């Protein structure tokens, strides 16, 4: 077999691999959801500008799709997407200040939502800095945002997550915190008390029958959840 034929074969085998790595284009994605051509072009332009600043395009496209699904007029959608890109740029700045050189789309989105909910840039930066790894920072910010939305102060919400990381809690345990906080409030605890209790550690809450708030499913292997249960 000649070298040319061998290289052709190698190229043929490589094509599916590289094609699988490509995401459908932004325009294709937006057109598939029925967005009008003018809006698609505008979103594409905003996304291109954002990408040049290191902001991922996908969340912007998702925002446009969300607006279109909700039957928001196209000019309003474009304005919201542009504003969202600006918020993401600020969030990216906070995240990179926290030591994440090339933050993921998920992390930037999480930071954007955190800052929109009232967690300031410094607190986002501190959270990212305290994260045990880049994969933990996004979920950590999601949890801090959800805790803050439940009435726990921004400082305490961030502190709960950071303290959990210091104790070596895994990401999965941290993701349970908003549900635990909700259950504790249902028992009559104030948001401040919930924050304080969670700062002290999750082990007491997760350990036994007495420590776990009512309504909180027991750890896996000890029974089924009340509202959700792990998929078999």
């Amino acid at each position, binding site marked *: *077999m*000649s070298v040319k034929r*061998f*290289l052709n074969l*190698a190229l043929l085998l*490589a094509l599916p*691999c*590289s094609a*699988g*790595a*490509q*995401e459908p284009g932004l325009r294709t994605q937006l057109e598939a959801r029925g967005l009008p051509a003018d809006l698609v072009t505008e979103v594409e332009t905003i996304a291109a500008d954002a990408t040049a600043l290191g902001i991922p395009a*996908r969340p912007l496209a*998702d925002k446009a799709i*969300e*607006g279109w*699904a*909700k*039957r*928001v007029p196209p000019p*309003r959608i474009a304005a*919201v997407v542009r*504003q969202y890109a600006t918020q993401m740029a600020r969030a990216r700045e906070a995240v990179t200040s926290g030591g994440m050189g*090339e*933050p*993921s*789309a998920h992390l930037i989105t999480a930071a954007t*939502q955190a800052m929109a*909910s009232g967690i300031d840039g410094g607190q986002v930066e501190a959270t990212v800095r305290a994260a045990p790894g*880049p*994969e*933990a920072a*996004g*979920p950590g910010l999601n*949890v801090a*945002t*959800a805790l803050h*939305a439940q009435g726990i102060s921004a400082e305490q919400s961030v502190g709960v997550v950071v303290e959990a990381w210091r104790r070596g809690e895994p*990401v999965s*345990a941290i*993701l*349970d*915190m*908003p*549900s*635990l906080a*909700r*259950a504790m*409030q*249902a028992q009559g605890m104030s948001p401040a008390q919930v924050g304080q209790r969670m700062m002290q550690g999750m082990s007491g809450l997760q350990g036994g029958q007495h420590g776990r708030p009512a*309504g909180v*499913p027991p750890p*896996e292997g000890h029974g089924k*959840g*009340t*509202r*959700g*249960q*792990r*998929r078999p």
Partner: protein
Amino acid sequence: MSTDDRFSKDAQRYLDGELHGELPSDERADTDRLIEAVDAYAARAQPLDASLDDAVMAAVRGRTPARRRVGWRWLLEPRQVSLRPVWIPAMAAAALLIAWLGVRGPGTGEPAGTAVAVADTVFVRFELAAPNAREVSVAGSFNGWQPDAVQLVRGETGVWSTTLALPLGEHAYQFVVDGERWIPDPTAHAQVDDGFGGTNSVIVVGPRGVVRS
């Protein structure tokens, strides 16, 4: 009707050649008639011409294999490859480049480690009390905000519900009532401004599921 219905166990053994003449006369007459019929049939059967095998095999070998089979055969048959050594480093570099592009993924910069948090899925129940609604669905970040993708089922008390398998992590959503009214879930972990004048509900799905208010 099976042979078991027509012949006794002894008759079957007789047919198999295990018994010799120990059957009752009527049963023996039946089995003998059967043996004779089989022998007569065997005698009439014409032996196949030995050349038929060769003809069939020649026809099979002569059939053009499907293109896919040709490709597979080409790939699977051992071949000699002659290659100038100068191509080896070039091909190694190309292989490394392909591997790097594959690992890098779709360009979102998403670290592979994130899969640890999102690989698992949890069943999450969505409920909305809307006794007067004609239809209720849920749309959110988990289904591309498609308003008609997930319909809820009405219970007797007017509570609409559905259960979805969602990845661990945060999800934003709203209920869509009668295909036009987007309303938040009052029991969610958080309510956030959606930027369009509405409110998205947010839940954070942990391994234990979701506890709402």
